[in-house]
C-alpha cells in the first residue's frame, strides 16, 4: 500500500495569491494513499527541501508529489532531494500549480479545485511509479572518422590533440579529398596544397591517429560509446611496411595511358600509382582493372623493379573489427558530370569542362603545370564562358537546391583565368550571386571591377561547336531577355554539388537519416547541426550539404568538440525513460508477436530483433528488443504496438491510465 506525501508550495504570492494553498493541502489529505499533506511558502528553499526530507523519513513515505512550479524548472531539484532522503528519485513527481494554474487563472474556487485536481492526477501516477535507475553505459575512448578530406582531417586532429585515439578511414589511396585537387582557394587565393599538405602530414604522424586509407566501413553494430565497426582494408597489393615510396615501380610500369582520376581525366597515370605526388601515405596501389598482370597473367615489371620486394600480387582484402566510442562522418561530395546536360551536348565537347577540371588546369601541379590550355587542342583559350548554377536550382533536370560554393569558385576561376591570360575575355552567366561569407562579396566585386570579368544575368540555353569555337546561346535578362551569343574557346560549367556515391548505403549501415538527395541529416538544423539523430554519430563537411572549406573546418571542429565532450566521461549516464518489451516465462516469452511495426516507427533505430532459441539451438520466435543505449524515450513504439508488448518507463500505460482515472 502506498504512503504518499504531498507538499504544496505557495511560491510566495505566486501561487498563494490565487490558489488557497491551505485548503488544497487539506483536500489532499482525503486522496486515498496520501498519508501526509502540508503547505509551505517556498518549497525549493533549503528549509523547504529539508522539511520534505524529514517528512519522508518520519512518515516512511514511498512517494512524494511536490505541488509547485513547472517540472521543467525544479524536477531535478526535488528528485535529488528525495533521493538524498533515501527513496528512489523517480518516485517524486511535480504538479504544476504555478505555470498551469495560479498564473493563468483568476482567484477563486474553480482555481483552487483545479490545483487539487492536478495534484490528484500526480498522486495516482506516483502510486504506479516504479523505482528507476539511471542507465550507465561505458565509453570506449576511440573515435572513428570516416572520410579523409579536409573535414575529416580536421576532426581527427582536433580529437587527437584532445588526447584521444582516432582511426581515420579513407576509401581512396590517399587522404586529402577534394581540397588536394584545388589550385587556389577563395576568398584569399592561397594555394590549396600549401595549406593542406602540412595538415595531411600532421595527421599521418600524430601518435593518436591511425590512418586506414584504401579502406571502407562495412558494418556497424552497437551504440553510443560502444560501437563495433568492421572495416575492409582493400588490398593495395603491396606490403606497406616494406615499401619506401621510392616510385621505381611507377616509373617502370608499362601501362601508362590510364585516365587519371586526380586530374579529372585531363592527364594519365600508370597501373601502379600514387594519386598525386604529395599523397599521404606515399605508397602506391595497383589498379586491378588496368594492370596487365591481372588482365593477362603477364608483366610483374613492378615486382622486378622494387628494391625492397614490397609487391604482393597475392594480397587479399582484409576485414578488421574495431571497438569505437564515437563516429564522425566526413565523406564529402561529388560533382554532377558534364554529360548530364543534353543542351550542352551530353558531354561530347572536350572543351566544356566542369569546375574541378578547371582547378586542375589552373593548378601548378596539374597536367598543364598551371598554363591555360584547353583540353581539345592545347591552345590557350582567348574567350572563356563560365556558367553558374549548372544543374543546380533546376527542378526539371538537375537538383532544386543551390550548391552554395559555385558562385564563389566561379568568381575565383574567372579571376585565375584573367590572371593567367591577360588579354583573355571571361564571361559568367549567372542567375544570382550568392556570396554571403566574410570577404566573399568583396571577392566577387574584385573579379568584376578589377579583373573585368563580364557578368551576364541569364541562363544558357544551348552550346554547340562551329569552326573550332563553342557557340554559347544565352540571354541577358537585365536587357529584357535579349539573346546573347558568345563564341568561346572553352566553357566551364559550375556543376551541381551532389551527395557522394553510395552515401545512402553508408547511412543505412550507420542507421543515420539522410535527405532525399542523399545528404546526411543533422539532428536539428539550428541547434544540433553536427549531431545525427543517432547518439554518438556526428557529421562534418560537405556530406551534410554543400559546403566550402571554412564552413567544413568550422563544423569539423564542432563535431570534434562533441566527441571530446563525450569522451570526458568514464560512463554515460542516461535518464531511464526508455521503452522495454515485456518478457514472460516460457512458453509465452512475451506478448510481442514479432510484427516489428515498432521498428519502423522508432526514429532512433533503437529496436532490434532478438531470436529466442530452444536448447537445441532452433529459433522458436523472434521478438522485439529495445536497446537502451539508443532509445530516447519518445514512446512512439508504445503507441504503435498493437499487443501492448512495449511500455515506456516513467510514462507507462499503467501510469497514464491511472492518471486518466482521476479525471
Amino acid at each position: 500500500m502506498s504512503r504518499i506525501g504531498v507538499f504544496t508550495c505557495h511560491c510566495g504570492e505566486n501561487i498563494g495569491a490565487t490558489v488557497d494553498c491551505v485548503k488544497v493541502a487539506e483536500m489532499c489529505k482525503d486522496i486515498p494513499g496520501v498519508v501526509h499533506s502540508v503547505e509551505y511558502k517556498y518549497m525549493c528553499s533549503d528549509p523547504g527541501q529539508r522539511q520534505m526530507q524529514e517528512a519522508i523519513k518520519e512518515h516512511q513515505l514511498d512517494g512524494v508529489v511536490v505541488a509547485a512550479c513547472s517540472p521543467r524548472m525544479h524536477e531535478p531539484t526535488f528528485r535529488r532531494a528525495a533521493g538524498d532522503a533515501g527513496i528512489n528519485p523517480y518516485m517524486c513527481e511535480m504538479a504544476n500549480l504555478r505555470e498551469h494554474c495560479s498564473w493563468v487563472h483568476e482567484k477563486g474556487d474553480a482555481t483552487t479545485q483545479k490545483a487539487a485536481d492536478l495534484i490528484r492526477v500526480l498522486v495516482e501516477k506516483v502510486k504506479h511509479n516504479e523505482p528507476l535507475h539511471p542507465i550507465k553505459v561505458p565509453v570506449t575512448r576511440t573515435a572513428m572518422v570516416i572520410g579523409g578530406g579536409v573535414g575529416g582531417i580536421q576532426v581527427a586532429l582536433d580529437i587527437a590533440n584532445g588526447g584521444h585515439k582516432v582511426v581515420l578511414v579513407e576509401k581512396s589511396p590517399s587522404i586529402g579529398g577534394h581540397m588536394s585537387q584545388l589550385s587556389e582557394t577563395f576568398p584569399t587565393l592561397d594555394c590549396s596544397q600549401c595549406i593542406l599538405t602540412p595538415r595531411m602530414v600532421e595527421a599521418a604522424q600524430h601518435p593518436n591517429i591511425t590512418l586506414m586509407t584504401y579502406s571502407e566501413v562495412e558494418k556497424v553494430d552497437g551504440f553510443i560509446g560502444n560501437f563495433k565497426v568492421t572495416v575492409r582494408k582493400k588490398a593495395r597489393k603491396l606490403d606497406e611496411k616494406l615499401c619506401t615510396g621510392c616510385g621505381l615501380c611507377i616509373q617502370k610500369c608499362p601501362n601508362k595511358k590510364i585516365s587519371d582520376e586526380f586530374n579529372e581525366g585531363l592527364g594519365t597515370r600508370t597501373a601502379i600509382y600514387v594519386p598525386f605526388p604529395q599523397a599521404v601515405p606515399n605508397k602506391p596501389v595497383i589498379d586491378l582493372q588496368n594492370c596487365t598482370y591481372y588482365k593477362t597473367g603477364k608483366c610483374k615489371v613492378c615486382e622486378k623493379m622494387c628494391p625492397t620486394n614490397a609487391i604482393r600480387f597475392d594480397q587479399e582484402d582484409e576485414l578488421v573489427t574495431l571497438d569505437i566510442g564515437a563516429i564522425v562522418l566526413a565523406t564529402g561530395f561529388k560533382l554532377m558530370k558534364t554529360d548530364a546536360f543534353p543542351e550542352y551536348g551530353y558531354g561530347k565537347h572536350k572543351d566544356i569542362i566542369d569546375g574541378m577540371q578547371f582547378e586542375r588546369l589552373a593548378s601548378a601541379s596539374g597536367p598543364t603545370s598551371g598554363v591555360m590550355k584547353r583540353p581539345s587542342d592545347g591552345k590557350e583559350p582567348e574567350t572563356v564562358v563560365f556558367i553558374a548554377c549548372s544543374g543546380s536550382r533546376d527542378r526539371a533536370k538537375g537538383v532544386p537546391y543551390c550548391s552554395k560554393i559555385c558562385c564563389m569558385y566561379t568568381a575565383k576561376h574567372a579571376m585565375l583565368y584573367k590572371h593567367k591570360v591577360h588579354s583573355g575575355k571571361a564571361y559568367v552567366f549567372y542567375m544570382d550571386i550568392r556570396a554571403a561569407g566574410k570577404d566573399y562579396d568583396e571577392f566577387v566585386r574584385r573579379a568584376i571591377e578589377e579583373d573585368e570579368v563580364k557578368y551576364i544575368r541569364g541562363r544558357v540555353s544551348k552550346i554547340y561547336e562551329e569552326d573550332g569555337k563553342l557557340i554559347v546561346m544565352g540571354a541577358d535578362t537585365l536587357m529584357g531577355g535579349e539573346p546573347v551569343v558568345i563564341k568561346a574557346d572553352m566553357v566551364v560549367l559550375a556543376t551541381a554539388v551532389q551527395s557522394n556515391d553510395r552515401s545512402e548505403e553508408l547511412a543505412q549501415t550507420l542507421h543515420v537519416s539522410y535527405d532525399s538527395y542523399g545528404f546526411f541529416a543533422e539532428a536539428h538544423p539550428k541547434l544540433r547541426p553536427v549531431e545525427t539523430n543517432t547518439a554518438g554519430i556526428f557529421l562534418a563537411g560537405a556530406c551534410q550539404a554543400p559546403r566550402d572549406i571554412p564552413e567544413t573546418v568550422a563544423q569539423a571542429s564542432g563535431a570534434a568538440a562533441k566527441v571530446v565532450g563525450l569522451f570526458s566521461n568514464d560512463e554515460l549516464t542516461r535518464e531511464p525513460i526508455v521503452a522495454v518489451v515485456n518478457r514472460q516465462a516460457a512458453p509465452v516469452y512475451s506478448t510481442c508477436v514479432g510484427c516489428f511495426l515498432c521498428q519502423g516507427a522508432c526514429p532512433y533505430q533503437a529496436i532490434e530483433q532478438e531470436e529466442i532459441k530452444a536448447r537445441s539451438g532452433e529459433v522458436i520466435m523472434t521478438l522485439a528488443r529495445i536497446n537502451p543505449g539508443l532509445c530516447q524515450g519518445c514512446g512512439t513504439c508504445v503507441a504503435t504496438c498493437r499487443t501492448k508488448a512495449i511500455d515506456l518507463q516513467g510514462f507507462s500505460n499503467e501510469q497514464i491510465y491511472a492518471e486518466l482515472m482521476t479525471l
Partner: protein
Amino acid sequence: MDEKFEPKITAFVCNWCTYAGADLTGTSRIKYQSNVRVLRVPCTGRIDYMMVLKALHKGADGVIVSGCHPNDCHYTSGNYHARRRWMVFKKMMEVMGVDMRRITFSWVSAAEGARWAQLVNEVTDQVRALGPYAEFRQIIGAGIE
C-alpha cells in the same frame, strides 16, 4: 443549454513543445479558462488513441492533443507518426459516430504561449456550447473498459 455547464477538458501534450508553451503562457501571465487538465507525455507519438477514448469515457467532454509543429519534433519524427495514427483514428471515430468537434488536434510550440491560451479558450467555448458528452459514455463507454 444548461447555463452553468462547465465542461471538462483533458489535454495530452508533449513535454518539449506544448508543455513548455503552456509554461510560457504562465510566465507571460496570460489568462485562460480553467477547465483544462493537462497530461504530460514525452511526445505526441506516445499517445495511444485509446487514451483519448478513455478520457472521454471517464468524463472528459472534450480532448486536446497537442505537440510540436511538423518538422520541429524533439524526437525528429514522433509527431509524424502521431499524425499518421491520427488520420486512422479519425476515420475510425467517424465510422463509430464520435463527434469530432470533441477532439482537437493542434500544434503549439514552446514559443507560443498566447496560442495555448487561445486554443484552450476556443476548445472550452466550443465544448461548452456542445454540452456534456453523455452520449459517448452511454454508447461506447462499456466497450472500451
